[in-house]
């Protein structure tokens, strides 16, 4: 039955896309990425960023050397650029982005094959997390609200489609994720009070297939989590994280961002669904299967867009399909991903804003720790206990690794108008301490924690490997490899800038490479000695 449906699925999506297998990324490659590829943002659909490669391991990590460096060269005389993209690897070629820019680079040599630049009409240029590829077509989003498709061989544009309205101050920053014949595109922007949504576009034409809004429809039970329809239809919930996908359940998983107005919540009393929620959708229809809300009625800008990591694990001796998120609000959640039911809720970082948990396992916000005109001391701060940098889960150790922050700041209300809009407040100042934490997914207990010395709180993504290694950025511009079981630091390299993306690894010609970005530069490491 399952095999039959998989064959049918492969066949229909193959026919729908019209792309010949072997030319580039195939559905088979996305479902089972080979060791010489990293074909989607998270490497595979699980979002766990665990590599089964072990040629680089705890016993030989100190032989790792620099293979090549690629400078984007677009930073010019102004502030340096920061590569937040996870480069994709397909047929020995890396593809990565900066806002408005895409590069194709030879993964063995760091040699540039092509560079594409989009002519921008505006939007916030804070970051771009990369591309999606299917067949020989690349897809990426631009700050000025376009989904652009390029030929992976030439870097020439095939088409572009508008995915949001710049005048309503949306912008776009996520890496599109390819699922079957769908390009999933999230949107960003929380300056004006506009609704968040996620779209699905056709692989070939880019035409819109469906759009799911991060709010219920008037009259639905969840609409009662808003005081009125206008607040609900202008309630935010941006979709700026990259989805994960379970092909057996045929569900995509992603988190939604903060409600609007961001800080002053007096005009939107209630839980504000589906903002700050982990959501499961059918990718063919855009229909919601279930939701779970990490931050009901958020007033701290704690977008719940952190990777919903899919874990095939065991709880009380029973095999379960799980989903884990280390959320920006300081709580670690484990859910049953078939139905969204909560299994674990536990703090993994400083968090003083909740009174307890409700029957569904969701934290209950403490009104005293909502922003106040005279200030409320809150942990975490606006940056959060975690943010967009991706975590990692190792099935070998059973540990979920997150570069976490214990942080405090003071949240203020600025706007005491009857109808606040936009932000209506903000947080100021703060203290933060960066700590790499390894969380037992079965209990939420922190098995080990490694505090990073240094004054910085810049954070990177995390990679774990079958070499019993965890790679993460510290607070001093180092990329560090640690023992995945114990947290002991083993190896480091100072990159001169904070590691700025999620590290990746792959094998080419029998050599395992480690790839990371810091600032405007990609660094590749390997053991190349003969």
């Amino acid at each position, binding site marked *: 039955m399952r095999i039959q449906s998989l064959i049918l699925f492969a066949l229909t999506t193959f026919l729908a896309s019209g792309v010949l297998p072997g030319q580039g990324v195939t559905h088979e490659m996305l479902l089972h990425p080979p060791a010489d590829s990293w074909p989607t943002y998270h490497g595979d659909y699980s979002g766990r960023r665990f590599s089964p490669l072990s040629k680089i391991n705890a016993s030989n990590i100190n032989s790792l050397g620099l293979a090549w460096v690629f400078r984007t060269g677009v*930073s*010019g*005389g*102004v*502030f*340096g650029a*920061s590569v937040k993209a996870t480069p994709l690897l397909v047929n020995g070629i890396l593809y990565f982005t900066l806002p*408005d*820019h895409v590069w194709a680079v030879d993964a063995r040599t760091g040699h540039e094959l092509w560079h594409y630049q989009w*002519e*921008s*009409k*505006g*939007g*916030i*240029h804070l970051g771009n997390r990369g591309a999606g590829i299917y067949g020989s077509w690349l897809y990426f989003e631009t700050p*000025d609200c376009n989904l652009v498709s390029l030929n992976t061989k030439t870097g020439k544009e095939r088409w572009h489609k508008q995915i949001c*309205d*710049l*005048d*309503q*101050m949306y912008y776009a920053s996520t890496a599109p994720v390819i699922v079957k014949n769908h390009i999933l595109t999230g949107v960003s922007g929380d*300056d*004006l009070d506009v609704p968040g949504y996620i779209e699905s576009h056709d692989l070939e034409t880019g035409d819109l297939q469906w759009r799911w809004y991060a709010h219920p429809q008037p009259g639905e039970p969840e609409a009662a989590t808003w005081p009125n329809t*206008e607040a609900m239809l202008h309630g935010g919930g941006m979709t700026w994280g990259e989805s994960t996908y379970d092909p057996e359940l045929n569900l995509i998983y992603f988190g939604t961002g903060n409600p609007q107005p961001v800080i002053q919540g007096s005009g939107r009393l209630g839980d504000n669904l589906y903002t700050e929620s982990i959501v499961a959708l059918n990718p063919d229809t855009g229909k919601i299967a279930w939701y779970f809300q990490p931050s009901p009625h958020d007033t701290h800008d704690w977008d719940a867009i952190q990777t919903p990591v899919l874990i095939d694990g065991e709880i009380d001796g029973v095999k379960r399909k799980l989903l884990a998120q280390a959320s920006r609000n300081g709580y670690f959640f484990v859910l049953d991903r078939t139905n969204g039911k909560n299994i674990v809720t536990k703090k993994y970082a400083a968090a003083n804003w909740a009174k307890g948990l409700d029957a569904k396992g969701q934290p209950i916000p403490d009104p*005293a720790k909502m922003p106040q005109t*005279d*200030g409320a*001391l809150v942990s975490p*701060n*606006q*940056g959060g206990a975690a*943010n967009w940098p991706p975590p990692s889960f190792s099935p070998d150790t059973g540990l979920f690794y997150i570069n976490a922050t214990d*942080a*405090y*700041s*003071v949240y203020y209300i600025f*706007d005491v108008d*009857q*109808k606040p*809009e*936009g932000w209506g407040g*903000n*947080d*100021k*100042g*703060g*203290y933060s301490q960066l700590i790499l934490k390894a969380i037992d997914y079965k209990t939420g207990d922190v098995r080990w924690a490694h505090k990073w*010395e240094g*004054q*910085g*709180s810049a954070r990177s993504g995390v990679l774990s490997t079958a070499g019993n290694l965890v790679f993460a950025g510290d607070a*001093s511009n*180092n990329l560090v490899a640690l023992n995945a079981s114990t947290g002991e630091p083993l190896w*480091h390299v100072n990159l001169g*800038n*904070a590691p*700025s993306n999620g590290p990746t690894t792959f094998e080419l010609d029998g050599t395992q490479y480690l790839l990371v970005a810091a*600032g*405007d530069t990609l660094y590749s490491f390997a053991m190349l000695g003969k």
Partner: protein
Amino acid sequence: MTHFARLCLAGALLSHAAAVPGAAGQLPDGSQKQTVLKLCGTCHSANLVLGRGMTREQWGDTVSSMVARGAKGSPEEFSQVVDYLAANFPPKASATKAPAAATTKAKKPASIGQGADDQQVVDDVLADRGKKIYIAECITCHGPKARGANEGPPNLRGPDLVRSVTVLHDRYGNTIGAFLRQGHVTQSGTPSADFTATQIVDLSHFLHQRVGDTLRSGPFNSVLNVLTGDAKAGAAYFNGEGKCSTCHSPSGDLAGIARRYDPPTLQQRYLFPATPSFGGRNAKSGKPVILTVTPPDGPAVTGELVRLDDFNAALRDSAGDHHSWKRTPALKVEKNDPYATHNALLEQYTDKNIHDVVAYLETLK
């Protein structure tokens, strides 16, 4: 209507250049430019500040809130960033006085790069004229801030114009004018189709000004009042439970502290002394972390921490000499953070403690 007054901060604007790395203008040279590049460049392009203008206090607030969002650097470096931004991007003089002739070559709303590059550049003089039209013809239904009216008779509850797609898509009256020409109720009974082209442009500037003021970078985003505590209770906490008097004295290091800082800055500095906040007069950056390193075969060396990670330690001694070591099990490293006690208190304070202590500190004039 004083809240309609355009603050000089609204002079903050972006350069018209597309925010493309490498395609933008240069930051002015200055001794702290490299520090600015290092601390801010991780997330921002230079377009963020080019063309903006703010007071030192406002730049301090901005930088301080960036620290809360994860900006990375030492207090001294953040101080340099504020110095540089305040010196090179002061408030625009032109924003505080009316230009001789009305001109549409004014400025964009304060912005961090949101929206389209071709968004309307608000002219304050025209917006002021538009405000008069708005008050005469629109305010009853659309409210004092153009956020709509939710109270009053249903026929006078007009929609929110800040959220109006017609307004947001408008450039210099092109969509607002088209809408009004179709006929729309006005307060005076004047047919909206009779509005002159000039009136429509003026209204357009006023409405875009309202949108700009709604943004988080708008001019009304400041702390309102933190002096809500009980000074006596604050003094009791200071001398008792909080143990502040162990290190501080109202007649010693804290004498006249309320003269040096405004209350919001006082609150921030008391809670986060290691994090620079620059709102006050003569604001100083924090004290350095002290490192003492004892090599297995040599005497201890003490100095200001330069760098400490899992692999290396470095300090600058009192003679100004730099020392660095590879960390090994035999190398003893002691770190003395002068703010460790303050940081530990963050887990213990109640918000009442905080407001009481600030009220008490405010009495130390």
